[in-house]
């Protein structure tokens, strides 16, 4: 099975194989030859252009070889002639028939598959003609009433049906017995259709068009569009691959010089490509087996290709893909190395939904797609979140743990998962139970009990940050890491799979049993290696789940934490998968001894978490989230003193910043609460400063600094007189805002109990009721 070729003197427009696939006829404007296909070369049998009487009938647009009689060839010529050639004869007699019926170029000619002597032609003049090669004229004429017919193909399933595609984008199905009217017509493409091909087994018809798509139609009772393949250029020829239900070969009309074999289920990247041609290929013919085919090209060559030499574009494609949409959702698809189940486990934590990509036969079901959506609150604006958090945080009055817990829940509710995690860390590090326990003597219990959630959370943070998205993060249920999740995912995939690709269901459900039935179509040399790969991959994929029971790293990790208390942000990511059920329970039960012996107990309570907390707070403050920094500081209460690296000016800066923000949002109450709760004198005094408001003298507008009823400048208390009793009002002065007259509160009240007018007689109606 080698790839070999032969060069012609001119571009080749079409090729046709004979019934036994031993000979090939090629036709072009200056080429018309028959070759015998040998093991590794083509041998020229005859050159039909050798005759001296060349005319335009010898330049072919299309060639067809009779299915029943090996001696007959039919050609379609650009001048509208359809010629039938008898290869057994010589010289001029070879041209047995020359039908000059089409007015314009004949684009396609095809012999009937079962009826001997019958052929059909499709022409630019919009007609199809059905010939009996024994008759001088067409047996039947079919008027398509469309612009021009580009391709006609007899159905392999029904001897009377043929399909015709035309330049106006419509497909017509005809019955050869009824030339008057087509059976069915439908608009298939938005541009001219250049080729069609019946599926050899099922009732599918593939059409290829200038609109850069290949469409596969199911023509059973109701017409449905089954698949659409998007190509990079207009497609001129298509041909289904024999014995491969989903494979179709295509040749582009421009730009793309390769012959692509598509898996119709994978519509964007070819399954295999053959790049031998230097110019666009013009035709493809499969030799009955799916591994070899012949192709002709505008580069004057005739090739035989072998599938062994196909290039696989899919394998060169970047297996990762990330995409963002305008809602801030991230879609990430990647290939999963099936031999490395650990990677998958690690990925599991950040997954919200996962679906498998459409599998092709290279990477069967081995890609994952993750969709990261923002949590439901995600669509809220920052200011709304700020408001909500400010209103709902509890900053005093409860125990530190409770407050942290509550605040964490609040933060989570508003979609601030990272902040929620920070609260949890604070709780863990400074919570009462931790402090109590740390002073107790039962240390090993403490260690094992408290470190776990901590390190769980840290892991969560790590992951959250690294993936830069709002994942479930630290508070992901532990079960998520467990084997069950894996299995659920598996089930998930199958479900999704079966929705999208019902035909593959068998294969997928067969998977857990290790029984890989590809369906008879798929059993194939080239896949054998792949299958074994995948099987071994699958085995590997299953076995690590048992390995998970005792991951060694779990113990190392624990030791490390206790010995060196490494900052959590240095946790190697690869260790992350140890966060599963087993690593939590088993080590504790089995290894208390180890824990006791190795620990350096005195240091434990002194674990200096301040730098981490400080880093976290600074991080948030830098990000502009001074709210978190300030609130954490407040909630910490006295514990904040342990953050000795945090100087007071920064604390003050944060608090003032938060208060400033709160007052911008008009959250006066909360601002006041913050001020009250603050420990820094300059902040604390905020509410005690400038609490005094002076009234102004109503004559000279000078502020009445000393007393409210005597102006220092005018030296008169004329404007502080009660309008009822005409005495200076030295206490509360009540006045009408309409006429600005007033007086003693009691007097005014008395007056207005009876009157409605102003007591000064300004006729202002002070009391409306």
């Amino acid at each position: 099975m080698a790839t070999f070729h032969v060069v012609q003197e001119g571009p080749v427009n079409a090729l046709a194989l004979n019934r036994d696939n031993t000979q090939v006829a090629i036709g072009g404007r200056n080429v018309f030859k028959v070759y015998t296909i040998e093991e590794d070369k083509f041998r020229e049998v005859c050159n039909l252009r050798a005759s001296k009487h060349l005319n335009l009938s010898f330049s072919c647009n299309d060639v067809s070889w009779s299915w029943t009689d090996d001696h007959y060839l039919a050609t379609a010529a650009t001048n509208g002639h359809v010629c039938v050639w008898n290869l057994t004869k010589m010289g001029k007699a070879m041209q047995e028939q020359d039908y000059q019926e089409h007015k314009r170029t004949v684009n396609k000619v095809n012999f009937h598959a079962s009826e001997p002597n019958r052929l059909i032609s499709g022409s630019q003049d919009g007609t199809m003609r059905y010939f009996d090669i024994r008759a001088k004229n067409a047996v039947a004429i079919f008027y398509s009433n469309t612009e021009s017919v580009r391709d006609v193909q007899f159905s392999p399933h029904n001897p009377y049906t043929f399909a015709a595609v035309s330049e106006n984008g419509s497909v017509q199905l005809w019955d050869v017995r009824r030339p008057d009217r087509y059976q069915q017509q439908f608009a298939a493409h938005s541009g001219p259709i250049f080729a069609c091909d019946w599926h050899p087994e099922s009732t599918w018809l593939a059409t290829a068009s200038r609109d850069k798509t290949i469409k596969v139609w199911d023509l059973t009772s109701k017409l449905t569009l089954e698949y659409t393949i998007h190509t990079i250029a207009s497609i001129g020829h298509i041909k289904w691959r024999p014995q491969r239900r989903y494979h179709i070969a295509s040749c582009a009309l421009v730009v793309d010089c390769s012959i692509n074999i598509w898996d119709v289920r994978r519509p964007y990247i070819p399954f295999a490509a053959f790049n031998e041609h230097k110019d666009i290929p013009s035709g493809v013919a499969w030799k009955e087996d799916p591994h070899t085919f012949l192709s002709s090209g505008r580069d004057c060559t005739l090739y035989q290709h072998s599938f062994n030499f196909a290039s696989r574009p899919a394998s060169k494609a970047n297996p990762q893909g990330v995409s963002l949409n305008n809602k801030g959702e991230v879609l990430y698809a990647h290939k999963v190395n099936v031999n490395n189940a650990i990677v998958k486990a690690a990925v599991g934590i950040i997954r919200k939904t996962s679906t498998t990509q459409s599998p092709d036969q290279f990477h069967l079901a081995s890609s994952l797609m993750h969709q990261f959506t923002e949590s439901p609150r995600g669509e809220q604006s920052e200011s709304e979140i700020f408001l909500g958090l400010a209103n709902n945080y509890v900053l005093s009055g409860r125990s530190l743990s409770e407050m942290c817990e509550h605040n964490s829940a609040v933060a989570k509710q508003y979609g601030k998962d990272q902040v929620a995690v920070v609260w949890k860390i604070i709780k863990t590090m400074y919570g009462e139970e931790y402090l109590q326990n740390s002073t107790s003597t039962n240390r090993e219990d403490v260690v094992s009990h408290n470190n776990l959630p901590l390190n769980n959370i840290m892991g969560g943070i790590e992951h959250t940050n690294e993936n830069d998205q709002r994942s479930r993060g630290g508070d992901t249920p532990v079960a998520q890491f467990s084997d069950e999740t894996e299995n659920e995912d598996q089930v998930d995939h199958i479900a999704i799979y079966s929705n999208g690709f019902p035909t593959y269901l068998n294969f997928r459900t067969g998977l857990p049993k290790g029984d890989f039935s590809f369906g008879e179509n798929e059993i194939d040399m080239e896949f054998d290696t792949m299958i074994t790969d995948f099987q071994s991959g699958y085995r590997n994929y299953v076995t690590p789940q048992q390995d998970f029971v005792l991951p060694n790293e779990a113990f190392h990790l624990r030791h490390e934490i206790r010995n060196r208390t490494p900052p959590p942000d240095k946790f190697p990511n690869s260790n992350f998968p140890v966060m599963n059920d087993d690593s939590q329970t088993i080590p504790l039960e089995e290894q208390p001894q180890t824990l006791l012996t190795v620990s350096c107990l005195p240091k434990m309570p002194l674990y200096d978490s301040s730098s981490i907390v400080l880093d976290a707070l600074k991080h948030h403050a830098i990000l502009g989230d001074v709210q978190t920094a300030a609130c954490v500081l407040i909630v910490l209460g006295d514990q904040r003193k342990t953050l000795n690296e945090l100087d007071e000016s920064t604390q003050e800066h944060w608090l003032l910043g938060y208060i400033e923000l709160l007052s911008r949002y008009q959250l006066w109450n909360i601002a006041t609460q913050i001020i009250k709760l603050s420990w820094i004198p300059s902040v604390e005094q905020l509410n005690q400063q400038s609490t005094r408001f002076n009234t102004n003298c109503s004559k000279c507008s000078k502020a009445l600094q000393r007393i409210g009823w005597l102006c220092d400048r005018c030296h008169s208390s004329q404007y502080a007189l009660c309008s009822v009793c005409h005495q200076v009002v030295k206490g509360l002065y009540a006045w009408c805002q309409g006429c600005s007259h007033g007086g003693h509160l009691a007097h005014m009240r008395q007056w207005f109990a009876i009157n409605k007018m102003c007591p000064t007689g300004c006729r202002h109606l002070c009391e409306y009721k």
Partner: protein
Amino acid sequence: MSYQDEEEGGAFDGHASSFPKDFGYGAFDGEHDVNLSASGEQKPRILLMGLRRSGKSSIQKVVFHKMSPNETLFLESTNKIVKDDINNSSFVQFQIWDFPGQIDFFDSSFDSDMIFGGCGALVFVIDAQDDYMEALNKLNLTVTKAYKVNPNIKFEVFIHKVDGLGDDFKMESQRDIHQRATDDLADSGYDQIHLSFHLTSIYDHSIFEAFSKVVQKLIPQLPALENLLNILNTNSAIEKSFLFDVVSKIYIATDSTPVDMQSYELCCDMIDVVIDVSWIYGHVFSVKEEQDPAAFDEQSSSLIKLNNGTVLYLREVNKFLALVCILREDNFDHKGIIDYNFLCFREAIQQVFELRNKCQGNPLTNSAGSPIVNGNNIIGERHLSPTLTDEIGSK
């Protein structure tokens, strides 16, 4: 339909290289520039119809008056029939009748015999971005009415303004319109009427292509022209050739290989370039035609080499027509052969139309096309094949 104007033909007989003027053939030597004054009834007529605001006037302005698509926004709505003679400038001697959308066929002033009688094609424009049910009713009404008067009319439906639609929706509405329109016709018993559908937009070249197809259907010599182009391509190793109407940039004919949209756009752009450049530099003031200097004359020819190894080659065929070829650069080595072949081709085209001139015995039928095909074969064989194949064989 008549393509022939007896009096005009007679008048021009005296000229050295006279040519049927009714189809707008200028003399090849360029001296006898045509002052076509054929009366309206004898020109093939294209009617543009459709609901109001469906884009009829825009199409007409963009295709035949070189208006930029963006400017069509400011077109006033048409409120009377605008007869536009595509005259003097274009090969296509057509009258475009732009009908106001709100025209009522049952109005007594509407002379359907006059309007549909001499009409070659009826283009019905449907706004795809709008609800098209009303348009379909109108289409059905128009088509049946026109068919009763003149069963030879070609009915073309432009599903217009598709630039604003997504691919799927485009397909969907095309199918829907297609289905409904043909069903409606079948329901009203006009099974035999055939509608052609085109997806068009003035913002790309689809409108030009659609118009090309409309015009091609009205040219009885199309098979001959196509065949000539095929032969030219075969013998000159040309990949693709278009016979363009220079002014409107619609192609009168092309060879039988599939038309690729990019190639077509390239050729259109090339014509623009040639015209623009010759307006600046190629302008020859001759005493005779000072009042009407043309940017396109018998000396026009242009060669553009693209960086992908492709050559665009433009040659003037006659006053209105240009041949634009796309070929590979290495095949362009034989420019002499190509030029020679082109001269043969030009001569052949001349003969095609002369032949038609001779068969004016039955000028009123479209079937005049078939003798031309046969005649053309003779022309093709005699004038092109023997000489050309020899030369190419020897290259």
